[in-house]
Each structure stands twice: as C-alpha cells, then as structure tokens.
C-alpha cells in the first residue's frame, strides 16, 4: 500500500472509527453545537459540560461521517477531558498547524496520528470538523457551523 495512505489511515484512526469513544448524548451538558460539512454530508453534534472554573468535565458526540472525521471527534472527546477552555483553543490551533504541514513543538499526544492528513488537503476539513464544532459550542452556544463558511 502507498505510504501516504498508511500514514493517513493509521491503526489508531481506524480503531477510533470502528469504536468511537464517548459516543452518545451527554445528559448534563451546558454547551453544544452542530458541525456540518456540506461537501460530503458529514454531521457532528457535540455536547459538553464546562465547570465554573472553565474546566471541561465531559464531552460526548453523535454524528456520521468519514473515518477521519469520526476518529477526530472521538479523539477530541478523549483529549479534552479535564482541559480548560483556554487549553482547548490552544490545542485546536496546534492541531490545525499539524494538519496544514506546520508541526509545532507542543505535545499533541494522540492527535499526532493525524499528521498524515497533511498530504491530503481535501481531507483537512474532515479532521477539523469536530474542532470547529467545539469552538462554536464554547464561543456561541447551540449554533450550527459549516466547514464552508470560510474557516479553512
């Protein structure tokens, strides 16, 4: 198989696509948003709970989409647990840098598995859909964001 494809469809990504973590509806959410990619029909609905001290205490998602967008949403729910809102924004920035071919020094943990997306410009939006949705939920609760409104 082609090296770029091996980089893209890493086992961690495939595994999260098959068994997404934190999939479902979060009962006591106080932030939520929907993300939509009209180019491929991917939809993500994200619900989270942010505590008074700005710590994200729980994140869950529902939706359908390609392996990259589902795995990205699944890993997002894992990695955000216990992070502050500020840390979440900064992670998104670093993650975006990684996807667009500007790897940062900052430790991205499991998110590093998405480095291969860089070789597939058309797929960057798949990897960032959940993150745009998160940002929308944090900034402006309960809205619908689209990948086609000039984010990328």
């Amino acid at each position, binding site marked *: 198989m082609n090296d*770029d494809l091996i980089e893209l469809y890493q086992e961690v990504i495939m595994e999260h696509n098959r068994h997404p973590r934190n999939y479902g509806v979060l009962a006591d959410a106080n932030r939520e948003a929907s993300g939509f990619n009209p180019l491929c*029909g991917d939809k993500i609905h994200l619900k989270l709970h942010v505590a008074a001290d700005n710590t994200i205490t729980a994140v869950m998602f529902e939706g359908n989409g390609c392996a*990259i967008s589902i795995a990205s949403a699944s890993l997002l729910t894992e990695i955000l647990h216990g992070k502050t809102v500020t840390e979440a924004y900064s992670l998104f920035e670093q993650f975006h840098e990684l996807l667009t071919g500007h790897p940062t020094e900052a430790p991205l943990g499991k998110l590093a598995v998405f480095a291969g997306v860089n070789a597939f410009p058309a797929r960057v939006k798949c990897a960032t859909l959940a993150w745009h949705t998160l940002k929308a939920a944090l900034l402006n609760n309960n809205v619908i964001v689209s990948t086609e409104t000039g984010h990328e």
Partner: protein
Amino acid sequence: MKTFTEDDIVRIRGEFPILSTQSKGHPLVYLDNANTSQKPQCVINALKDYYERYNANIYRGLYELSELATAAYEEARHRAAQFLNAKEDCEIIFVKGTTEAINLIAQSYARPLLKPGDEVLITALEHHSNIVPWQIVCQQTGATLRVAPINLQGEVIQDAYEKCLSEKTKIVAMGHISNALGTINPIAAMITKAHAVGAVTVIDGAQAAPHTALDVQALNCDFYAFSSHKIYGPTGLGVLYGKKALLDAMPPYQGGGEMIKSVTFEKTIYQDLPLKFEAGTQHIEGAIGLKVALDYVTQIGFEAIHQHEHELLVYATQLAHEHKLRIIGEAKEKASILSFTLDNIHAHDVGTILNHYGVAVRAGHHCAMPVMEFFQVPATLRASFAFYNTKAEIDILFNALSKVREIFK
C-alpha cells in the same frame, strides 16, 4: 461505425492527450465524466488556433480578424442548432452553462409569468441547479414548487407525475438524465403530458447531450439546455435552446453591450434574437471549441457511443453485484453512470484511496442532496463512463475497491 473495435478504442484514446498521463504514479483511470469530460486534441487545437490566428472581439471590428471570429462564432451557433435539430439558429443562446440557462428561463420567462397559486413542477431526481432557480422564482412570485416523486429504483413514478399536473402547472422542469443515478427519464411522454395541461417544458440536458442524439423538434420541448464541458468541449459555455416565439416574448436576462440596437438615457431598444440574451463579450473560443467537439462526437456517432457505454455500464454493474456493492439507482433505462456505496465505508474515504491508485471518481452528494436523502445515504461514489473508457479501466476500479476493503477490514 456501429460498434468500436479494439483498434477504434486505441485510436480514440490516443486523441485525448490526458488519457495517457499518470496520476499518483499509476495510469490515469478517469471515471468522472458526468462531472466533466476530457478534451480531444482537435478541441484543444481549435482554442489554440483561435488565439494564434484570429483572436478578436465579435460583431464589432471592421477588420479581417473580427470578421473571422464572428463567422466562427456564428458557425458554432449554427452547429449547435443542427446538433439539437432546432428550427432556426436564432433559437440557440450561448450562456455560461446549463445552470445559467435554467436561471435565465426562471428569471426571464417564469418570473414575469408566475402568480400566486401557479405551480412549477420538478422531479425528485433534479440536480440543485434545476431546483434552486425555481425556488428563487417561486419566492419572488408566490408560486408553489411541486416535486414529482421517485420509486426505489430511482425512476419518476409516472402516475404520480400525472397527478401533479393540473391547469395550475405553468412550468415543468426536469432532467433528461439524472446526474446522480443515471436514470433516463421518458421525457418525450412527460413533455406531451405537461403540454396537455398547458405547461411549458424546460429540459436540463447536461447529462444527456454527451450520450444521446437529440431532436428538440421531435421532443417538442419548449426549452432545452446543455453544457459544453460535459460533451468534450471547453468549460464556461452552455447552450440554451428555446422556441423562437417564447424567446421573442421574453425580456432580456442581463443588460449590457451587444444586446442593444440603440441606447439613450431615456430608452433602450434591444437586439433581436439571439443577441438580446448575449450581453457583453461572449465566450468566443468556447463556442469555437464546442463546435469542434460536436463535430467530433457526431463523427464518432451516437449509435456506437451508446453501444460502447452501455457495455461498460453492464460490465460494471455485474462486477458491482459480484463485489456486493450497494447500487444506488437501478432504473430500467440508465445512462453509463454507476452510483454506489461500499459497506459502511464513507464515500470520501473510498474516493481518497481510489485516487491513490490513479482512479478518479466522484464522491459526494453530486449536487443532488434530496436524492441522497431519499436513499438515506450521506453520499455515494459515482463512476461515470465515457466512450473512451474501457473494461480494463473498470477492472482497475474494482481492484482498487478491494484495496479499500483491505484497509477498512
């Protein structure tokens, strides 16, 4: 020539320079023809020739170059009229593409006509460009947009279509062939039924023109539109056919240069057909290229084209069954379009992997979201075949699909 021999295919493929290129280190397998077609050398040469020998604006120059360009542009109009079997050349309006043609009809024909209570009827198979312009004009006029439903094979249910027709129906707009599924609509019969209630018919022929011989007089449609780039011609150009009496009565779509007889600040007198609808400098080289493309396909012959493309469709459909793909759209009458899904793997993942084997297909909703919703899929893969495709290329597609399954096992 009724069917292609092996030699014919080799020769035809040789006439399309892009077909001998590589993609991602593999020979290009281009199966996205419903999206846009590749261009034969003769079309590429025609564009080059225009710019090298007689580039000038049309109608306006009193010099040889402009005369040459004007003659070539009008010859293209004549060729398009011939291709559609229009009665007169002035029934052919050059536009940007099928989308602009439909918008022109919606704004110049429908908007002055429609009133609250009137209905525009489309089908559930339509491309967004044959939905949205009608939604816009219905919002502007208070008319109602109705949709004739389809069955699980992806065919318009004819009884239901008839039931949608009434004296309220002013316009029936439908695709000749569905871009998402390949369904060939029985438009001749559907046009007759529409006329029986007094409706005017608008046919989106974007997918039909590359595959079928057309005769607008036999069809008796009121408007017919197709795009150059899908029939081996340049992008940015389309053809709108309209019956002369209808076009004559319509106000201009856009104002500007070349569509006027005289202008004062008080009053403008418009040009006669077809120039009334061609404001501004036109896509001259596009029309010239389209003329050559129409000559080219006509010379190959639609009988042979249909025969070959149908063989490819049958072959691919059989392999799709063997590979247990879910085929979306199984109309009895189908053009060479195979829309499908692979297990539960998202179309974009499949498309990305196919691309890495040099295979170009469309993955997405094909600008037909309501069709996707009807079949409850977010997106499909679509392989669409042209007369230059081969069974060997379809084998490459299916081998690559097997690789997708290995990766997603």
